[in-house]
C-alpha cells in the first residue's frame, strides 16, 4: 500500500463510493425525515415549521433548534391507532414470513434435488413473475379473489363451498397477496444455501446409520440456517412496511403501518406525524437486526 502512492487517490475514491452512496441516498433522506418528525404541522408550503434557513443569521439557527420537539413521538404513544397499526404490521409480517418459509423451503429443497440443467430452468421459473409488473399481478389477484372471480367459480364447481366466500378486503387476501409476491425472495436465498451443501454430507449421515428424514433435521436444516435467516429478513422487513398489497387486497381491519403513513402524509397532510411514524418503524426494524448480528458475531468468536 505504502509503495503505491499513485494509486492511493483512485483506490480511496473507489472504496468511498459506496459510503458516498449510502450517505446521499440513505443517511441524508433519513435525517430530513427525522428533522420533519421533530417539527409541527403548519398550513404552509412546506406544510411544517420550523424551516431551516440561514437568512436570519445565528439567531435564526438557534430559534430553529429551539422550535424542534419530540411532541410527535409522544402523540404516537398516546393514540392506540398507531400502536395497533404497528402491531398489525409486525403480526402480518411474522406470519407471512412463517408461511413463506413453510412453502418456500420445500420448493428450494426440491429444486436442489433435480439434475443441474433442470435446476436453472426451475430457478428461472421462480423469478418469472418479476417479468410482469408487480401492480398488474396484484390487480390480477383482485380479479381472482372477487365475489364471482375464478377462485370462487372453481370452489363452487368442485362443490367445496355452497356459498361463494368473501375473499377481498380480508386478512386472508392480504396473506395470499404477500406470500405470492414475496415467495421468490424466500426461495432464492434458501436455494443458494441448500445448493452449496456437499452431497457427501448426506451420504456420510446415511453411512453412520441416520435415516433420511432424520438427516434432514440433523444435517440439512442446521446447515441451511444462514439461508433461512437471509430469506426471513429479506421478506420480513419489506412486508412490515408493505403498502400496496394491504391497500388493494385488504380491508379496514388490516390497517398496516404503510397505510397509516400514507394517510397521515397525503390525506391529513400531517408530514411531521407521518415522519415520526416512519422513524419509529426504522428503529423497530433496525434494532432487532443489529442485536441479532451482534449475537451472531459473538457466537462466531466463541466457536
Amino acid at each position, binding site marked *: 500500500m505504502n509503495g503505491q502512492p499513485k494509486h492511493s487517490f483512485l483506490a480511496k475514491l473507489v472504496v468511498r463510493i459506496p459510503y458516498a452512496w449510502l450517505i446521499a441516498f440513505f443517511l441524508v433522506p433519513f435525517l430530513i425525515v427525522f428533522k420533519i418528525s421533530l417539527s409541527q404541522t403548519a398550513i404552509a408550503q412546506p406544510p411544517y415549521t420550523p424551516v431551516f434557513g440561514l437568512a436570519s443569521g445565528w439567531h435564526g439557527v438557534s430559534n430553529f433548534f429551539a422550535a424542534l420537539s419530540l411532541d410527535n413521538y409522544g402523540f404516537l404513544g398516546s393514540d392506540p391507532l398507531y400502536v395497533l397499526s404497528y402491531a398489525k404490521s409486525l403480526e402480518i409480517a411474522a406470519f407471512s414470513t412463517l408461511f413463506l418459509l413453510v412453502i418456500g423451503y420445500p420448493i428450494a429443497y426440491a429444486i436442489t434435488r433435480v439434475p443441474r440443467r433442470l435446476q436453472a430452468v426451475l430457478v428461472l421459473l421462480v423469478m418469472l413473475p418479476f417479468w410482469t409488473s408487480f401492480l398488474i399481478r396484484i390487480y390480477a389477484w383482485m380479479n381472482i379473489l372477487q365475489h364471482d372471480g375464478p377462485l370462487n367459480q372453481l370452489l363452487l364447481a368442485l362443490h367445496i363451498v355452497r356459498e361463494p366466500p368473501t375473499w377481498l378486503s380480508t386478512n386472508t387476501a392480504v396473506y395470499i397477496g404477500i406470500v405470492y409476491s414475496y415467495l421468490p425472495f424466500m426461495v432464492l436465498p434458501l436455494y443458494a444455501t441448500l445448493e452449496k451443501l*456437499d452431497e457427501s*454430507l448426506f*451420504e456420510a449421515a446415511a453411512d*453412520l*446409520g*441416520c*435415516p433420511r428424514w*432424520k438427516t434432514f433435521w440433523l444435517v440439512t436444516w442446521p*446447515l441451511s440456517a444462514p439461508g433461512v435467516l437471509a430469506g426471513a429478513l429479506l421478506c420480513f422487513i419489506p412486508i412490515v412496511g408493505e403498502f400496496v398489497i394491504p391497500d388493494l387486497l385488504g380491508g379496514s381491519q388490516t390497517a398496516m403501518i404503510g397505510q397509516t403513513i400514507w394517510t397521515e402524509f397525503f390525506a391529513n397532510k400531517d408530514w411531521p406525524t407521518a415522519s415520526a411514524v416512519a422513524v419509529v418503524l426504522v428503529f423497530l426494524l433496525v434494532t432487532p437486526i443489529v442485536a441479532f448480528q451482534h449475537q451472531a458475531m459473538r457466537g462466531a468468536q466463541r466457536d
Partner: protein
Amino acid sequence: MQPVGSKQGFAKRAFAPWADRTLQPILRVEGLSKRFGPFTAVDRLSLDIYQGEFFALLGPSGCGKTTLLRLIAGFEQPSAGRILLEAVDLKPVPPHRRPVNMMFQSYALFPHLNVEANVAFGLKQEGLPKREIAERVADMLALVKLESFGRRKPHELSGGQRQRVALARSLVKRPRVLLLDEPMAALDKKLRGETQFELMDLQRRLGLTFIIVTHDQSEAMTVADRIGVMDRGRLVQVAPPAEIYERPNSRWVADFIGDVNLFEGRVGDDGASVEGTLFGRLRVAAKIDAEPGSTVWAAVRPEKMRIAHEKPSPERENCAAATVVEIGYLGDVSIYKLRVGGGVTVQAAIANTGRVMERAIGYDDEVWLTFAPESAIVLTR
C-alpha cells in the same frame, strides 16, 4: 481365488486367508455390474475379501474403483450381480443399515458439529446410552491422538487433523468392513507417508477389514495385504503387492505398476526363450506358458537392468549394445535412457551405491545393456 500368495511366499506377513480354502470371505462380490446410461463403471466384477484383510483397489481415475466402493456402501444400486457381507445379500439393506462405514475423500465432516459430536454422530443413531457414547468417543479420539481437540469445529483443524477425525468417525461404530475412498489424497507427501503407517498399525490393532481405494501405487503397495488392480470396470489382477510387481499378469499391469521395459517377440521352439527381440534371442528362466511361435512380451523392470562398458559373457546373460541418450540423477538412483538397435528407448535404473564408479557412464557412451534370464517376465497379453 488362486491360492498364489502363500505358495510363493510373497505375503508380507504370515497372513494369507485368501489361500485358505476352508475360510469364508467376509465380503463377497459376485458378477457385479454398474452402468450409468451407456457407460459401464463396474463390469461383471467378482472379488472375495477376508476378515482382517487390508485390501487396496488400485487403478487409474475412471476405472470404477470408487463406484465399487459406493456399491458396497449402498450409495449406488448395482445393475447386476450381488454383494454378500458375511453371506448376507446386501441388496435390500439401505446404506444406513449396512454394517460397513466409509471414510470419504472429502472427509464429509459435519461443519456445524464439533469433533466430539462428529465422532459421536454414528453412535447416537444406534441409541446407545450417553455414558457409553462419551467413553467410546474419548477412546477413539485418543486412538487418533486428538484428545484435546474434541471441542473444535472442523474448520478450526488442519488437513491432517480433519483426516483423523474422519477416520475416527468411521471407525467408532466398529464396522465389519471399513471403506476408505482416497483417504490420503488431500495430505502432503510427508504426512501421507506417516499416515500410511499409522493406518496399517490401526488396522492391525483393531483387527478390522479395510478396503482402500487409491490411484497411488506406492500407497497401495505400502498398506495393502492384497491389491486389486482395476481397469475399465474390471479387476485385471488380484495379488499381494510383491507379486503384482514381480509377476504382473499383463502388459497393462506391468506398465501401470512401476516402470517396465517391454520387448516383443515370438516364443522359441524350446519354449524357454523369446526370439526376434531387440536383444535377439532372449533367454528366460521359466518355461513359457504359450505355443511356440506365438507373440509374447518380455517385461524387465529398469532396476533389473545393468549397464557396463565391457561386454559381459553372452552365454549366461541377455545383452545388447546400446547408446546412453539421457541420464536422470535422482540421488538414490540414476535413471538411464538408452537407445538399442532400431532407435527403441530402454530404461535402466542404477542404484548409486558405493564410491565413484571406476569409469562413470556418460552421455553418448556406447555401453552393454544386460539382464539375467530370471529378471524377465514373459507376458502373453
